[in-house]
């Protein structure tokens, strides 16, 4: 608890608020405002994990989003989350975290044996070894890799946190709140533009928090605070911290993940854990800054080796010393800034500068402070296993090829600076053609494809003065175009120290006789030697080298490794870096929680639920529901201990003998109105529609242009120019779009309007031999006799004072009617039907009984109209007009559709009259034939025939017309069943259709 590496005062943490936390089971203290990383470092903890492949000890390398090592498993409020960067996770009271990638523990790791066997694990090892023999993969290799590797474990429990999605629009979206982000946001906001400023860290200000500069006669940090405070008061500005813009998509749509609650011990009531913002911006300003590059040297992955900027940030923001005997290894002036901070806090650093004789104001300041500086010196290798203990250093020749005599010096950390890499991910994702900037050895954005501008160090501009000038101007110019306001904001004066040219030096040569591992990619353990092997084996494209070596493919996506990898390839290949090119940047910039991506669309919110107006009645009467698209429909009404099979049989039987009622509200309904309605129907359906009289219904089949059946249903002529069309539940939306397509695009001359009325009508199908008796009692004032309301007739009636529509149509094959009332009266209708129907033995029936009834009648439904069948296949060719044209007619002439042995619907009965045939079973001639057994057809629907009390199925069978009476086998490898069957007519019950007309 002593926080031995915390300096006496300073930093931005709240020293009045002490927080306790646990790491790998041990308790520590930190302060409010710490990250898990800074708090651990304050306690001198440097060993936080093991590397992915060799399981080498891992410490901290960065202080933010670029961190490749310090990935932990987080435990918070009873939940756990993997893949958390300790450098990004803010400390809260009671935080618990564990190392990943180590088994059994971080200090003793079995996988580390890979480190000593590393000769066996060169580039492409996984490709070469684990691919063969194939049978070893599942049994041996994969379980081993899964156990030994991986970056934590996902929770298997339900996630109780809530995640939100938000859609937002703005004039300017600004990514990053460093000097360029603040300047451009301020200038644009003053012009009245709607601005969103996003910062991924908890604190605003970016590099101003750690740099020693003055803006407008204040420290950079104070200036930043002032700007943010003013922006927050402006109604046209949204300022968001802890918010990472991670993806730049088409048409200036960007996605941002806001961590609302991760910094708290527990999410506040009614608050989400994270909020995903979909932002459509008119202009995007990318001020995402830059990330320091490492210099590559031996054992450069040893805990204690870190970026010099990170060491400075731990000191200036958190008041934490990453070491007390620091060695700074640099090729530019940034290392000196870190050394100066150490010195100011009473710690003596040694600076190794690869340059021979650099001169600048910063270097002068370091010299004046008496800092020990060695020019033309490099770190050859770090020494120490779990922590840096010393360094091998040497002088280096001017051509950087020869090392001088190796010396060893004591140190407890090595702070590296290999200059800066602009963060161009967002610009690149937007489609920007990036270009290589020779002066800084890095890529910068080039020609914009979308409305995007990159500013400041993300654009390779490292002078603060220049950054402020260009950013104020960009913010002002872009906003002026949108708002037409021009409040010319004065650019504040800047005081900064000038720096000198960096050294184009990125990799220390190996001393003779040593083969230190020199790592490029720290998270995936890709060393210089691995890339050398890949190139030697013939890989040339940088994309191939990346995949073969896994360079830059870890969760940090190579933020600290990409450029050094490119330098190496270009050096070996003797090409310039831009000729090698960089790999593609893809979203997300940093890992995003799956929960945030899913948002609220979980559980019952994953899709809308549609309920019929009679739903509450069904619920009260023990309905068991089934999903029908987004609808919930009663599958059966359970009585006592009935099974689905028993209940559906009872319900279907009751329809065949008495009367049943079924909720058919879910059927799609479309109102077709206008003088050309009949003409439209005549073109859409395969049969003739011009002569349908008012008050009559007709069954119709509609095709797609390719001749495949799209949907079927009955349409009724309500009045002269008004038709009521019904569709299947599943196709309702598609049919409406289909009609709109033809009316708007193909036949705009037709004067017809279509609109969905599915929600407007509640429907009840009343079916069974006693249905007319029941109907007569329900509508005592209407003549519903066979003459008054014949089959396919329609009338309006008075239903206990409510207007109702009565259709004499049947899906069950029985004498049947369908009654529609306005939706709000649905329950009223249903209750009255049940009450009046009592004396006729009425029972409600669900979709299972409905299926049984239609299957044994041979009526087709979705399982036959499956997008692969034409009218003939469904025995519907009688409905195909020869006289008129209609959608899809020409396709029916295709030779495959007119073939003599064309597939056709048939009935299938098991020979034993006992065994139910699984739906989807294949029909074959010989059950012993070698695989693949030639398939003649498939079972589309199965039921238990209540008429004959044995199983019955429908099938689509090749040459079905000539197969009646044949004996085949129904095979279901899935259910492990082979059933001898007989082919019969699909019209199993009442083949002449006498009942519906009775």
């Amino acid at each position, binding site marked *: 608890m002593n926080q031995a590496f915390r300096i006496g005062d300073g930093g931005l943490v709240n020293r009045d608020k002490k927080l306790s936390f646990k790491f790998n089971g041990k308790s520590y203290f930190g302060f409010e405002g710490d990250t898990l990383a800074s708090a651990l470092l304050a306690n001198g903890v440097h060993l936080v994990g093991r590397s992915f492949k060799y399981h080498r000890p891992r410490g901290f390398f960065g202080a933010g989003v670029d961190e490749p090592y310090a990935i932990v498993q987080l435990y918070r409020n009873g939940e756990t989350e993997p893949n958390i960067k300790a450098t990004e996770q803010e400390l809260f009271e009671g935080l618990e975290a564990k190392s990943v990638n180590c088994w059994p523990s971080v200090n003793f790791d079995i996988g580390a044996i890979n480190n000593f066997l590393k000769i066996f694990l060169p580039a492409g090892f996984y490709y070469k070894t684990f691919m063969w023999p194939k049978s070893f993969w599942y049994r041996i290799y994969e379980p081993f890799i899964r156990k030994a590797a991986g970056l934590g474990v996902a929770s298997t429990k339900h996630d109780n946190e809530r995640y939100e999605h938000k*859609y937002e629009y703005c004039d300017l979206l600004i990514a990053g709140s460093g000097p360029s982000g603040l300047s451009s946001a301020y200038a644009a906001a003053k012009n009245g533009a709607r601005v969103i400023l996003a910062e991924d860290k908890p604190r605003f200000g970016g590099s101003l928090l750690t740099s020693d500069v003055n803006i407008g006669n204040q420290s950079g940090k104070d200036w930043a605070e002032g700007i943010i405070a003013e922006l927050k008061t402006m109604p046209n500005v949204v300022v968001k911290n802890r918010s990472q813009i991670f993806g730049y*998509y*088409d*048409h*200036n*749509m960007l996605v941002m993940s806001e961590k609302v609650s991760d910094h708290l011990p527990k999410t506040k009531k009614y608050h989400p854990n994270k909020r995903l913002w*979909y932002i*459509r911006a008119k202009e995007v300003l990318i001020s995402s800054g830059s990330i320091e590059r490492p210099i590559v040297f031996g054992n450069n992955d040893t805990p204690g080796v870190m970026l010099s900027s990170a060491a400075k940030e731990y000191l200036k923001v958190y008041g934490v010393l990453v070491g007390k005997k620091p060695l700074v290894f640099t090729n530019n002036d940034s290392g000196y800034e870190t050394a100066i901070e150490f010195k100011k806090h009473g710690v003596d650093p040694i600076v190794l500068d690869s340059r021979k004789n650099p001169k600048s104001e910063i270097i002068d300041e370091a010299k004046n402070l008496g800092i020990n500086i060695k020019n033309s010196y490099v770190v050859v290798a770090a020494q120490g296993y779990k922590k840096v203990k010393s360094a091998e250093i040497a002088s280096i020749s001017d051509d950087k090829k020869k090392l001088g005599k190796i010396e060893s010096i004591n140190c407890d950390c090595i702070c590296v600076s290999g200059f800066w890499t602009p963060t161009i991910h967002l610009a690149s994702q937007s*489609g920007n053609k990036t270009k290589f900037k020779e002066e800084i050895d890095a890529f910068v954005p080039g020609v914009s*494809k979308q409305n995007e501008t990159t500013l400041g160090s993300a654009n390779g501009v490292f002078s603060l003065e220049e950054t402020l000038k260009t950013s104020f101007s960009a913010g002002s110019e872009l906003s002026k175009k949108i708002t037409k306001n021009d409040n010319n904001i004065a650019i504040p004066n800047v005081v900064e120290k000038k720096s000198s040219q960096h050294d184009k030096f990125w990799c220390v040569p190996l001393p003779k006789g040593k083969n230190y591992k020199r790592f490029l990619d720290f998270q995936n353990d890709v060393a210089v030697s691995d890339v050398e092997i890949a190139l030697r084996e013939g890989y040339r494209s940088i994309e191939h080298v990346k995949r073969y070596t896994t360079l830059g493919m870890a969760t940090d996506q190579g933020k600290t490794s990409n450029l050094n990898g490119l330098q190496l390839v270009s050096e070996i290949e003797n090409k310039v870096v831009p000729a090698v090119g960089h790999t593609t940047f893809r979203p997300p910039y940093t890992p995003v929680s799956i929960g945030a991506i899913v948002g609220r669309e979980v559980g019952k919110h994953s899709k809308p639920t549609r309920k019929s107006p009679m739903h509450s009645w069904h619920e009260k009467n023990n309905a068991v529901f089934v999903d029908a698209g987004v609808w919930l429909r009663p599958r059966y009404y359970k009585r006592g201990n009935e099974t689905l099979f028993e209940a559906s049989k009872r319900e279907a039987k009751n329809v065949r003998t008495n009367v049943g009622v079924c909720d058919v509200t879910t059927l799609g309904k479309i109102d077709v109105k206008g003088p050309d309605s009949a003409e439209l129907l005549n*073109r859409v359906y395969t049969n003739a529609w011009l002569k349908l009289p008012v008050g009559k219904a007709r069954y119709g089949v509609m095709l797609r*242009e*390719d001749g495949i059946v799209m949907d079927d249903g009955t349409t009724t002529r309500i009045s002269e120019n008004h038709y009521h069309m019904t569709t299947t539940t599943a196709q309702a939306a598609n049919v409406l*779009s289909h009609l*709109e*397509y033809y009316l*708007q*695009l*193909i036949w*705009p001359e037709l004067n017809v309007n279509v609109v969905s009325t599915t929600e407007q009508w509640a429907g009840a199908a009343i079916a069974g031999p006693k249905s007319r008796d029941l109907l007569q009692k329900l509508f005592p004032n209407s003549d519903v006799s066979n003459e008054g309301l014949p089959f396919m007739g329609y009338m309006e009636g008075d239903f206990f004072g409510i207007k109702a529509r009565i259709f004499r149509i049947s899906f069950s094959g029985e004498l049947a009617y369908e009654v529609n009332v306005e939706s709000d009266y649905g329950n009223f209708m249903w209750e009255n039907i049940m009450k009046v129907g009592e004396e006729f033995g009425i029972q409600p029936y669900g979709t299972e009984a409905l299926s049984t009834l239609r299957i044994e009648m041979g009526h087709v439904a979705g399982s036959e109209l499956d997008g692969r069948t034409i009218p003939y296949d469904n025995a519907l060719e009688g409905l195909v007009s020869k006289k*008129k*044209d209609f959608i899809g007619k*020409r*396709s029916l002439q*295709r030779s495959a559709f007119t073939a003599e042995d064309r597939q056709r619907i048939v009935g299938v009965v098991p020979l034993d009259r006992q065994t139910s045939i699984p739906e989807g079973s294949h029909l074959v001639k010989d059950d012993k034939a070698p695989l693949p057994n030639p398939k003649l057809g498939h079972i589309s629907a199965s039921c238990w025939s209540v008429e004959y009390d044995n199983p019955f199925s429908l099938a689509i069978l090749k040459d079905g017309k000539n197969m009646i009476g044949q004996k085949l086998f129904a095979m279901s490898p899935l259910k492990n069943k082979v059933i001898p069957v007989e082919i019969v007519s699909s019209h199993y019950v009442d083949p002449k259709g006498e009942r519906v007309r009775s």
Partner: protein
Amino acid sequence: MLYINCPHCGMRSQNEFSYGGDASVKRPELNKEVSDQEWDDFVYNRKSLRGKHLELWQHISGCRQWIKVERDTSTHEIFRTFKAEEEVA
């Protein structure tokens, strides 16, 4: 996500629309004799262009109008949008 200018409603996000394929295809007139080749070209054969493409979209969660969208299939740039009845030169 694309940002589409519905000629009836204005700028709307792609998730309000559904895609409807090539808008340059002309349906043969009803009752007209059509060769197998012509019919195949209408029903099946599409160019799958890279570059400027005139395509149909329906503003399905908006005004429900079918519209024509001139879009670059490789860059997603949208140049112009038209109402269903507008002829595109």
